[in-house]
């Protein structure tokens, strides 16, 4: 029993259906479009939403970059690249500027995205209001009515309790003054990169069966208050031990030998380009 898989794994009907949902998502920035998410050869929660977007969009001319928590070589990234490569044979790259499609788990590359590029983000929990409303039926109504007081209240309570907004990654954003959206668990550091980005940003949640999008040049604002502004993670006074970069998201690494903490670029592709003296 030898069976060959179709180009990009899916049958053509499935790809078309996912693209249709994607087009709707682009037309309504920040709105979560339900779609018939397929089971993938990669586990739910391991980027199946992003993977379905990538596979539905990819053509023979595309160049793909996949990153997982900033790294091109992390388990999730390697897995996904292997599957796409095996079912399409397209070119894979580690260099952000070369890629036409960048699939990423929880980071937006340090190198600014260009027009014509597509950034596909993997989303575990697409519903920004889930924190205070467990029911999908209810949150759909809240979005329809643009009733977001709960989201503001959540931030307000954090300020009251901790003295600052204590969101980690996935700090909610307002897209084009209409929908509150979960930017996927990118660090707060990456939120501003979504605002008026030149590339198309697509977000896919496989398990939760939602696709949503931030089209190029769309206003994206992190939720905050006039007298209490949104703050990104701070790496003040720290730089990458390898390439010396500052003003980038850094990984904190403990040196086994010396017991000291040092910092390194989280975006390994970016760091490599700098180390090789190439433009990035």
């Amino acid at each position: 029993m030898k069976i060959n898989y179709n180009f990009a794994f899916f049958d053509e009907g499935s790809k078309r259906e996912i693209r249709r949902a994607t087009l709707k998502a682009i037309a309504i920035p920040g709105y979560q479009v339900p779609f018939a998410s397929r089971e993938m050869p990669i586990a739910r929660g391991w980027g199946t939403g992003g993977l379905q977007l990538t596979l539905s969009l990819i053509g023979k001319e595309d160049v793909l970059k996949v990153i997982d928590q900033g790294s091109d070589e992390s388990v999730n990234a390697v897995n996904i690249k292997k599957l796409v490569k095996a079912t399409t044979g397209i070119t894979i790259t580690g260099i952000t500027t070369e890629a036409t499609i960048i699939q990423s788990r929880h980071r937006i590359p340090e190198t600014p995205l260009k027009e014509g590029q597509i950034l596909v983000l993997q989303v575990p929990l697409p519903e920004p209001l889930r924190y205070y409303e467990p029911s999908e039926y209810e949150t759909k109504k809240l979005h329809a009515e643009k009733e977001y007081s709960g989201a503001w209240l959540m931030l307000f309570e954090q300020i009251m309790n901790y003295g600052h907004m204590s969101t980690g990654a996935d700090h909610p954003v307002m897209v084009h003054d209409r929908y509150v959206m979960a930017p996927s668990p990118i660090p707060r550091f990456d939120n501003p990169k979504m605002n008026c980005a030149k590339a198309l940003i697509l977000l896919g949640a496989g398990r939760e069966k939602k696709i949503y999008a931030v089209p190029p040049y769309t206003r994206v604002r992190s939720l905050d208050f006039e007298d209490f502004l949104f703050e990104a993670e701070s790496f003040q006074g720290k730089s990458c031990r390898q390439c010396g970069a500052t003003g980038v998201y850094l990984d904190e690494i403990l040196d086994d030998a010396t017991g000291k903490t040092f910092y390194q670029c989280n975006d390994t592709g970016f760091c490599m380009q700098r180390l090789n003296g190439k433009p990035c």
Partner: protein
Amino acid sequence: MGYVAVKGGTAAIEESIRRLKYERLKKRRILDFHNIEGGMRCLIDQVMSESSLYSETLAAISIKQAEGSPEEAVFLMRAYRSTLPRKHYTRAVHSENMLVERRISASFKDIPGGQILGAAYDYTHRLIDFDLSEETEEEIINWLDDFSREYGNGNDSTDLANLPKVLDYLREEGLIAACENNDSEPDDVTRDSVRFPASRSARLQILTRGQTGAVISLGYAALRSYGALHPTVGELRIGNLPLYVDNPFNEAKEDDDAYFIGEIKVTEVETLFPVPAPKENGLKTIEFGLGYGICYGQNETKAIAMSILDHCLEAGNAEYPTHNEEFVLLHIDSVESAGFISHLKLPHYVTFQSELDSVRKSKKMRENNKEFKP
């Protein structure tokens, strides 16, 4: 965090996959998938049911590849299912047409057509049969010959393909509310994501593909305390259902022009729940409510639990999580629950760094300003 980031991740992953293959092969035995098909009927049934893909052969190969893990085997089957275009739909199947192998009712001692015990573990003692470790091919062939000799001489005239439904008897008595057939096109949860409130067809589909253990657990919860229902199994039947596809070149969709494409074995359960029914003059009477369960293969506990949950969701009591359709339907899928739990093994150092930043910031604020006033 040794397994991420630094160059060399790809090589380490390749080695891990090789190691996995070694684990499957290290005892130098080839598990022929025919043996799985022959001897692991119940596991195959469970895998096919949770996968919503009816193929004993594919299930057997998946079980082999997954080294017997149902979770992994279902995962393989579901992923393969995603690549299959939907070319035809079968005609609606009626369970009256089932070629019955087993059929019991707990509600009546005697039912029209009789109780047919068929094959079931229910009547065995769960004592490990140590002799099985030395079972020989010769033994089983002799046993099978004897069995078919006895079985072939049976002169039972029961028409197993036309057994009446037990519930029809209660309907005739007026003890169950008569209901119209609902012939509207069912929703398809694999082609449209489910929306709430969900239709009954969507609910039944999700329940039947649910992970066996999850469906049983929630059904048990509803039975034990969260709803404290005590249903009676009106009828449980197991057997093969014939499937037909309309002739695609004949618009008229005539019965005798349809193609027989094969059979599927299913377990079907109808359970009865006493429910109060309002009467015109304000007085209440008791009627029977129904729960429906069906799944691929022989998996009776799952089918009964499904029928309990079907009834719970139909009633929709806000007091109990087992009656809340989002709670039940969104958490019983094997691929989804296992997938999301296993994703916790993925590196989370970007998100964790972000949390660290937040924790440190709040600590610093406390220290700088012991009596914080926002």
